[in-house]
């Protein structure tokens, strides 16, 4: 750090003592004064750095809808979340191709949503500043959809243009407190969170309690990094109710999790990548999403999905139209299209998640009768009777719990 060494030491040995001392001390003084002034000035400037609220009003933060003259639609979705033609199958027409043919809208579709929080981070700065994110539609899970709607970042969907949505949405997904009338969101697919295991490597794992305590699983399980998914079950295991819990319930649950993590039971908290570790044999059991497991079973029949004894966690990924999207009407056409039962059934037959569309089950008879009775795709009213959801959190709770959560997941 050459810059910090005081001047006089640089002089040669001779003649430094008397003649230079006054000059040096004056220089040191000047230097000190300069640094002091600089520091004071800096301190005065610091408060200027602040950042404004990111809340927007969708009514004012909107772009002119050019859907009529610009027949395009930009969609961001999770990976492997839409049907594609198998290699070598020229006959199959995907739902997306059919949509394009029927409406004349060309869709640019990307699967760049890996994680709700990560996606939020990616678009936060733009949406918070009322800037376009160059997408007309994104699919986000309930809690994140709720958060974005709360921040005013999502455009309302006109009910007249999506009649199929309001007619065909299955009952359990109606009346969600964060968007009771489906004014801003439409479920794309729903799913269950449960346990998956590799039957060639371990016995059945029937409950989260077993997953978290069995010695033969130590270090060979993963949990999901989505706080709500995992903590719902931790609350259940420790006797709390994810739909309605107190701070004490929360601390019990998080302490339980921390204890198990410290004991080395949990190998990692993961996003979608758990399914690779499971198929590769790096882990033998894990918390999992139903659709992923059904897809993995095609490659490896030893992969099994279990509804844990603690109950079912039902969630949806929702289609949202962000502020400043320029193709709102095309997006609405897309939503309405995917709420046609035949289309929904075709999609469900491929992605294997719970289909949110009434009447799709009947259509499925024509496509793949084997799947009709799969309760992971078409659960009955009874199946869904004891599903639970994670209660809505305000910003303060969210910050508090997310903080606790990241303490545990970061060791």
């Amino acid at each position, binding site marked *: *750090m*050459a*810059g*910090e*060494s005081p001047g006089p030491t640089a002089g040669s040995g001779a003649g430094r003592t008397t003649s230079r001392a006054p000059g040096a001390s004056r220089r040191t003084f000047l230097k000190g004064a300069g640094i002091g002034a600089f520091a004071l000035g800096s301190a005065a400037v610091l408060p200027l*750095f*602040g*950042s*404004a609220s990111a809340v927007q009003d969708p009514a004012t933060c909107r772009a002119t809808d050019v859907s009529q003259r610009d027949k395009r639609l930009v969609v961001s979705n999770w*990976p*492997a979340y839409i049907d594609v033609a198998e290699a070598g199958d020229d006959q199959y027409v995907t739902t997306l191709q059919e949509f394009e043919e029927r409406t004349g809208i060309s869709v640019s579709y*990307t*699967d*760049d949503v*890996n*994680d709700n929080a990560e996606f939020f981070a*990616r*678009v*936060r*700065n*733009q949406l*918070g*500043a*009322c*800037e376009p*994110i*160059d997408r007309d539609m994104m699919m986000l899970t309930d809690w994140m959809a709720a958060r974005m709607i709360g921040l005013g970042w999502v455009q309302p969907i006109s009910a007249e243009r999506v009649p199929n949505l309001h007619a065909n949405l299955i009952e359990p997904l109606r009346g969600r407190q964060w968007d009771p009338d489906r004014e801003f969101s439409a479920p794309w697919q729903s799913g269950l969170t449960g346990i998956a295991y590799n039957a060639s490597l371990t016995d059945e794992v029937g409950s989260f309690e077993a997953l978290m305590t069995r010695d033969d699983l130590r270090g060979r399980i993963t949990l999901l990094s989505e706080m709500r998914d995992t903590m719902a079950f931790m609350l259940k295991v420790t006797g709390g109710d994810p739909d309605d819990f107190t701070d004490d319930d929360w601390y019990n649950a998080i302490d339980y999790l921390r204890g198990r993590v410290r004991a080395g039971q949990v190998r990692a908290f*993961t*996003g*979608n*990548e758990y*399914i*690779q570790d499971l*198929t*590769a044999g790096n882990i033998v059991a894990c918390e999992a999403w139903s659709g992923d497991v059904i897809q*993995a079973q095609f*490659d*490896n029949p030893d992969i099994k999905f279990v509804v844990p004894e603690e109950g079912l966690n039902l969630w949806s990924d929702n289609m949202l139209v962000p502020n400043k999207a320029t193709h709102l009407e095309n997006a609405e056409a897309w939503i309405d299209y995917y709420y046609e039962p035949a289309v929904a059934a075709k999609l469900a037959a491929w992605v294997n998640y719970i289909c949110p569309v009434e009447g799709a089950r009947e259509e499925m008879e024509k496509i793949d009768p084997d799947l009709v009775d799969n309760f992971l795709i078409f659960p009955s009213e009874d199946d869904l009777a004891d599903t639970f959801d994670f209660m809505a959190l305000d910003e303060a709770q969210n910050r508090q719990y997310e903080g606790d959560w990241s303490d545990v997941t970061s060791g």
Partner: protein
Amino acid sequence: MSPGMSPLQRMGRWIGQHLVLAGGILVLIYMFVPIFVVVLMSFNDPKSRLVYRFDGFTLQNWLNPCADAAMCSAVSRSIQIGLLATLIATVLGTMMAFALVRHRFHGRSVANLAIFLPMASPEIVLGSSLLALFVAAGFAGQLGFWTILIAHIMFCLSFVVITVRARLAGLDNNLEQAAMDLYANERQTFLRVTFPLVFPGILGAALLAFSLSFDDFIITNLNAGNTTTFPMYVWGVAQRGVPMQVNVVGTVMFVISVAIVVGVELNRRRQEKALAR
């Protein structure tokens, strides 16, 4: 055969003499093992997108490098940013290096410190402070190509200055004086003598800058907003199944850069030989 030594002694001596070399080669192998894997996996025919392991040989990945269009657009964006960042950082950095080596002025030590500090800051700090600035200055909505470029130029700059400065400092001052003595004016001296001599240093700095820029994830990820570069794409797919084309890109990068380095080296040798003749 030397009578004073038993075969065992000779062997011991031979091993002793080659131990370090063997160790060095082992370390090199350690450095290359993952590269072999990258090259191998670029020919992989995966059974399942979920499992990352070698299942069979195919040329498909090479024939269809852009099977995932998102990857190719990420690669081309990374190349654009890399080239622009390299160009600007190399020009600015070379100018700074010349100023620092060839000119005396007040505040040199401050300038040296300012160049050292970005290298002494962890990437996460550089990235987060830039993000803090962009957010505080109200540029949060503009995060993307240009903010990535700004960040890349910033962290490449120091490396360029250091590399060129080292080359420049090792240069014999007499050569420039000799040029002046032989009737070259200052501009001619620079163009005909100084620049050609410093050029290998500048080229090295540019290569370094490009690879730093092309490779950067941490700073980019914080300041990319909605834009995806190649490392960000890889980070994303690492969580959901890696297309083997990623390894094609890795292999191509490797081959091109080695070709450049070897080409420069061969050229240098040829010139040296020509001079020796």
